Each structure stands twice: as C-alpha cells, then as structure tokens.
C-alpha cells in the first residue's frame, strides 16, 4: 500500500485488528445492505445508515453541515478521532462516507482495504452483534470542502473540455442497455451516459479479495482509457456511491489533484430536460 500517492488513508484488516479498542480510534461500518451491520460487525464498530443518516431524503441532498455535526456528536465521534471506515460491496458506501467526512473537513479518516468481505473471510477476525455505546462528543465542523463535490453546473462546464469525465457504472448502464441495475428503485428517464465520459467501471480497480489494485495497474487502467491525470476530473455513477469509490482511487491512490464526485449522477443527469446524452 505504501506505493500509493496517499498511503496514510488506507489501512489493512490486520492493522484494524491490532488497533481494536484503542483510544482515539473509531471504526465505522457503512453498508449498501444495512442489515449486515445489525447481524454482525467489527467489535466496537459504529453503524451508520447511508440513506437515513448520510443523506437528507427530503431535500434530496447530502447531510447538511449541521446534520453531520449532530450525527457525529450522537455516535460519539470527536474531531480528533482517527475514523476507520469499512463496508459491504467492496466499500461502496464506506467510500461515500469517506467523501462526506472529507467534505466536512474531518482530519484523519481512513478506509479499511478490502472492506467488510475481506474481514468476514479471514479466520482470525472476529464479528460481534452487540452495538457499542460511546459518550456523546462536541463535534464541530469548521470547514466545508465543496471543491470535492461536482454540482450540475460543474458537470456542464466539464463537457466544454479540459476535464476528464469518468462514468464508473457497468458497461450495460453506460451504453443505455439498462437504466439501472435490476431491482433498483432510483432510476432515470433515459439510458446512456454524459457526452464525453469514459466508461471505467469501479469494479476494475479492485482485485479478487476486494483490495485495491497496485498503483501501476491503476495507472495503466485509467491511462488506457484516456484519463489525463493532470486535468480536473469528475466521477459519476447512478446515485454517487460507486463513484465515491473511484473518487477515492483517483484522488488518494493515484494522486490526481482536482477530483470531484458528482453525487447527483445519472439519477439527476438522466432526467434533465434539454440535456443531450450519448449511448
């Protein structure tokens, strides 16, 4: 892991095991399938729900600064804590959580490489059903890094040139053969992709055990699809969770300076009036 541009934001499952229960370290599980945490999780891990806690469904937006602050206070995370995130589906929503923590300026947040599945399949790693309880904190958000997020005007601007647009969905979603993975309720009116976007599925960045590919392999992957690491880059998917995974890869493993996650993603762009798409 030391070869990456920012190796300090990635920890191994062994590191997590060695640091369980230590003061100043809070482990947080964020899953796509929220029942996984309820059945069993890393000892001491806090569970956050992406839908009800990390997002505001009424505004259709990420949790506001005040909501994020209150959530941190309630679960007992302090500003000085090292936060270790992990989750199912190779860290889809754990990466979304990472993006949100960084957006709200949390200093030390890291991702457990391989996520929940790697931990689950290692014999020396324990899971427990008991939920932890930590004293409430007085967390405060002092900076908001909106330059990590792409809102729609930025996406239009990127289409004028000088940017990389990376569509991380499956090839069938990119070509418009399907609008969303089967059974998904959040969808769009049209299938296809944002004009000019390259299709580099998020899953091509991980190995068989769910850990990230080597720096060399990642460079080759994105380079072969025409991504210029010197240019500002926007990643998107369907609702912004898989693209958080790619945002993490581009910004912290490959060291691309200006990378934004377009969390509106295809469920916003695919529904716009008057916006052209490609198939």
């Amino acid at each position: 892991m030391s070869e990456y541009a920012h190796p300090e934001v990635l920890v191994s499952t062994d590191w997590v095991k060695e640091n369980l229960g230590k003061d100043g370290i809070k482990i947080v599980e964020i899953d796509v399938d929220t029942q996984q945490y309820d059945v069993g999780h890393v000892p001491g891990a806090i569970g956050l729900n992406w839908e009800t806690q990390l997002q505001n469904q009424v505004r259709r937006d990420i949790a506001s600064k005040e909501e994020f602050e209150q959530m941190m206070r309630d679960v007992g995370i302090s500003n000085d804590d090292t936060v270790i995130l992990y989750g199912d589906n190779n860290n889809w929503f754990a990466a979304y959580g990472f993006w949100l923590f960084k957006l709200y300026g949390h200093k030390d947040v890291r991702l457990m490489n391989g996520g929940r599945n790697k931990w689950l399949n290692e014999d020396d790693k324990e899971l427990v059903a008991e939920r932890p309880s930590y004293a409430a904190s007085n967390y405060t958000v002092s900076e908001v890094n909106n330059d990590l997020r792409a809102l729609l005007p930025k996406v239009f601007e990127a289409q004028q040139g000088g940017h990389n647009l990376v569509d991380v969905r499956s090839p069938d979603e990119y070509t418009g053969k399907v609008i969303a993975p089967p059974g998904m309720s959040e969808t769009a009116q049209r299938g296809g992709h944002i004009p000019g976007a390259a299709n580099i599925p998020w899953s091509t960045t991980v190995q068989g055990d769910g850990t990230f590919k080597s720096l060399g392999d990642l460079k080759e992957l994105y380079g072969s699809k025409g991504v210029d690491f010197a240019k500002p880059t926007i990643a998107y998917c369907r609702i912004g969770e898989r693209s958080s995974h790619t945002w993490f890869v581009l910004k912290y493993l490959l060291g691309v300076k200006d990378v934004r996650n377009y969390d509106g993603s295809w469920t916003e762009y695919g529904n716009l009036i008057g916006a052209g798409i490609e198939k």
Partner: protein
Amino acid sequence: MNHQTRVYESVFEMLPTEENPSPIVRINRLNPEPDFRMYAKLEWQNPFGSVKDRAAWSLLSDLEARGELSAERGIVEPTSGNTGISLAGMASARGYKTRTIVPNKVPMEKKVMLKMAGADLDVVTDDLCPSPGMGDGSINLAKTYAKSQKSRYVMPNQYENEHNVNAHIRTTGPEIRRQTEGKITHLFTSLGTCGTVTGCATYLKEQNPDIKVYAVQPSEGHDVPGLRNVSQLDVSKLFNPDLIDEILEIDFELAYTRALELCQNEGLFAGPSSGLIFEGACQIASRDKNGFGVMIFCDSIFKYVSNMVKHIPELSEGTTPPNAK
C-alpha cells in the same frame, strides 16, 4: 422400513438410496431422436421435494455426527430455496432451528415454504453490480451470523462442503447406474452449488470413463432460481470443470417454455431448471443421434407458479370470472 409396501417409521427412511431411488421416467412425445433414449430423474419425488434432500441430509448428518447441533444451536444457510426447504424440514423434524438467507429474486412460493418448514427467513438485496471479491449477499450474511453468533448458529455451507458432493457419489450416481443397468451414455445436469454434477460425474466416470457429462447454464442476466451462469460460479468451491465434457449456454426463457411443454406433453410437472436441462439434452440428442441420456430434474413446477406467470403471462388469462372487478 419396507420399500415394497412403502411403510416407514419416519420421514428420513424415505430419503433416496440405491435401494430406494428416485424414479427415472422416459421422455416419449417430446423426444427429437427416437434412437436417443431420454430419461428424466424425478427428484421432486424425494420427501422434501427436490434433489437437495440428498445434500441437505448429508450436511445435517455430518453436523449431528460432529456434535455441532443442539436445541440451542441451529443451522444458518444461504439458499435459493430448495436446500433451505430440505434442511428446515429435516431440522424441524429433529428438533433444531434453521435460519435461511435468500436473495430477493427467489419466488414467493419458496420464501413461504421456507417459513412453513419452520425456518426463520432473511431476504437480501440481489447482487447489484457484481465485482471480484464482493461475494454473494446471501452467503455473506449467513457467514456473518455464523461468525458473530457462534453459540446460536453453525453454517454447513453447501457451496464449499464436500458432503454435498459425497451425497451424490453415495446415492445419485449408484442409483442411475443401477436404474439404467449401466447403459447410460450421457448425463445432463445444471450448475448451482455444483454438488450434483461433481458427485454424479465423479461416480459415473469412475464406472465408465466414456460417459459424457453435460452441464447447462442459463444465459447471463437470467431469472432461473437455483442456477448459476459460469460467470457466477466463483462462489462454489465444488465446481470441477475437468469432470464436465461440455457446458451448454441456453437462453433462460427456454427454461420456462420447455417446462410448460413437459407439463403439457409428458405429464411431467417439472420446474424451470428441468426445462433448461431438457432443452440442452434435446440439442445433444439431435446432434449425437444415438445414446442413453439421463437428465436430473431437480424439482417440480409447483414452487414456480409466480415465475411461470411472469415469464409466460398468458397463463394468468382466464383465471378470474369474466366480469370480475
């Protein structure tokens, strides 16, 4: 126990063995090649309704023998239905609890049957965007129960447990050999956990290396419960491609239309996986012209009524009074 009079002291005496095999029945009207005999092995005749009775009994017996089960510690298992139904039925009859984890796409009939057989049921979201290392949601949740609540659950894990394969080496293979008097030339199965194909092929090829083994797989993006496309097989440690002569990929919609044809022409109320196997067998029979084929018909159509209506909507026509509102 008396297999002649069929009087049994417990349901477990009815489980299939070489002395009490599930029947094989010849295909007559739908056989495309008169010189290619086709027999279907009707696994729904097993007491809990499917081929999975064999693996389930093998897994349960092993757990009992190792002292892993008690009134307080039951079974947790991921299932597309049949293994869970067999395990739950057997476990309930022996005083153990069962928790089954199923993908959402499993038909409602199977979900309700699991509950009727005494299982607790967890339903997980289907795989959304598969990737290496992600595993299968139902397997992951079952492993989580087994790891986080060891005093309450043990997971036999049909995808990795050799007792699944051994069940077919011990029963299905010898039954087929005896029933066909060793004349079988072609075996047709599907792929799921791969216990059936690996066990039957191991036994039959030991007896006669010339026997050809054909596995059918539904086309990608399929909707045939219990089956896996080869691209989905990394979850099974029991898949051994060396034992399979050919894997036939078949349009999954044919699973449903062929199953209906078997109902309406042969009197065989076979489920969609049997329909898919039957289509594969017909293709090989038409190609090879001569042979003695046996098809493993995993279960009956009764558990798939909602799926049949979904894929053949005209089946629901005329099922309500003409003026019903």
